[in-house]
């Protein structure tokens, strides 16, 4: 009872009861899945077509947009749908990248598809460990713990430098386009296809899950955890599930990066990466998977634009290197300040609109 006399916690937004007339039949899983598959197929065809129109560097960027989108989409399930803040998503990309690198180096005969599946499994296992350990943590406590994860995990590469290659990381060779297609398709192009195929498959799974029971439960927990628990939703398990799926996505994204670049170095999974992913998510919009797309696009191309701008103005490299960081930080601040009902509120309203449709 003492708590009622204390300064109240900042109001966790009261979300207006959603007008959800239950007369409409629940969306059946198969049509949803089919829609998603069709959309994914279309997207893949679009990417394939696009890679024929652009040069090799641009193809790399297209691939990068793909896997960043997956990482952000995973984060979106966690932050956007379940309201848990993770500042450590880069750590799961680190896990995926190193799992890929180790498999390629020590078991070169394992096919790529198996590696991808393996990294998802490894990422999910890591997610179970971290998710279970942090399931009871809220808001700033969870943010603090995942922050420590983001800063601490890459240091493993330094500690186990015999196996993980120290600060130089691991270097390995990934096969590009199959020999039958030599001359028709470049390596970069092929890798972009593979990555987008992988990403789209994962996204279809993700989109279907968040449209289904898991998504509903997560949103219920985000909106009001206590009410969700009283409605019989297993809160702890659902939150851990979200954490695990999001970790799997992050790990797979890391695997895609390793596959694309042929390296895994600790410095590419810095705290800045984790924060950038979160920034991109907020920038793109927390509410939908489209947000992940816009966020990834922004991450790749705004960074590029910042660098080019700095070059154009003849700024020194230390300025140029930091342009994206400052830019994203500013964007975050502006978005939060200019969104008077709060991101959380905008997001609830958004999800309300989506659900009513």
């Amino acid at each position, binding site marked *: 009872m*003492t708590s*009622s*006399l*204390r300064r109240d916690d900042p109001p966790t937004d009261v979300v207006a009861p959603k007008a959800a007339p239950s007369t409409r039949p629940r969306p059946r899983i198969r049509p949803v899945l089919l829609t998603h598959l069709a959309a994914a197929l279309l997207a893949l065809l679009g990417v394939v077509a696009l890679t024929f129109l652009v040069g090799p560097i641009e193809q790399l960027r297209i691939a990068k947009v793909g896997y960043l989108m997956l990482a952000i989409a995973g984060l979106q399930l966690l932050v956007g749908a379940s309201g848990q803040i993770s500042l450590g998503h880069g750590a799961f990309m680190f896990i995926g990248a190193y799992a890929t690198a180790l498999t390629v180096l020590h078991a070169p005969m394992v096919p790529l598809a198996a590696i991808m599946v393996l990294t998802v499994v490894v990422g999910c296992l890591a997610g179970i460990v971290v998710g279970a350990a942090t399931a009871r943590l809220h808001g700033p406590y969870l943010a603090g713990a995942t922050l420590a994860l983001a800063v601490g995990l890459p240091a493993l590469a330094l500690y186990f430098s015999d196996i993980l290659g120290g600060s130089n990381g691991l270097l390995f060779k990934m096969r590009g386009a199959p020999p039958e297609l030599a001359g028709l398709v470049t390596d970069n192009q092929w890798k972009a296809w593979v990555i987008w195929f992988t990403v789209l498959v994962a996204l279809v799974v993700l989109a279907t899950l968040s449209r289904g029971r898991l998504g509903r439960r997560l949103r219920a927990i985000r909106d009001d955890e206590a009410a969700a628990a009283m409605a019989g939703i297993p809160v702890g398990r659902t939150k851990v599930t979200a954490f695990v799926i999001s970790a799997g996505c992050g790990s797979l994204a890391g695997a895609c990066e390793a596959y694309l670049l042929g390296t895994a170095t600790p410095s590419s999974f810095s705290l800045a990466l984790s924060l950038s992913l979160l920034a991109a998510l907020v920038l793109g919009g927390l509410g939908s998977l489209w947000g992940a797309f816009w966020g990834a696009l922004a991450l790749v191309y705004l960074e590029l634009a910042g660098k080019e701008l700095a070059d154009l103005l003849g700024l020194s490299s230390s300025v140029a290197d930091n342009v994206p960081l400052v830019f994203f930080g500013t964007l975050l601040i502006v978005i939060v300040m200019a969104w008077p009902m709060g991101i959380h509120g905008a997001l609830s309203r958004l999800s309300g609109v989506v659900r009513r449709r």
Partner: protein
Amino acid sequence: MSDTPILQIENLSTYYGAVQALRSVSLTVQPGEICAVLGANGSGKTTLLRTISGLQPAAPGSRILVNGEDITGAPAESMVRRGLAHVPEGGGVIVDLTVEENLRLGGLWRADRRDRAQALDEVYELFPPLVERRNQPAASLSGGERQMVAIGRALMARPAVLLLDEPSLGLAPLITQQIMRLLHDLRDRTGLTVVLVEQNAASALSITDHGFVLSQGAVVARGSSAELLADDRMRHAYLGF
């Protein structure tokens, strides 16, 4: 005593978003009066006090005067300087502070250190049970003691007007009675003006000079306490006894 009312409220309206909580409330309180604001749950009593003390913004066109000075729109933290002390619903005792710290907080706004010490002594005199608990955290107090701290803290400011929001909430009838008697004595001794918001109309009217009845944010009746008590229709419709 001058003719200026100590508290004068004209045409006061308040909104919570689109919901109007007070509808053109006007009322006047003379110095040294104890007046009751009565009404059912949600009739706007608490909102009235919160708007007077600046915790809730008043709609344009409203006027609140204390001793002839227009205080409409002034920030809540300036109210003690204008002679207005507000004991909010539940008392607003800060449980993380000790009893004495809570009390001292009420007098801090005044520069005179000696006067503050004297006010503290007076409050302890008024509420003897608080003396031996002075260094305990307020969280350890009983409901009645908390209400004492709340009122004591308000009195530390040496206000001209005391706004009191449901001091009887959650207290045993005997303690409520004690508090009511205390307010009455205080008024007689110091000339303090008290605006008392109460749901428990019978106990409030037993010590007040006159009262206002709020219903759905508007004043529906006003008169001396005796008149209000005597009016059966009023009692049944709004006061519930």
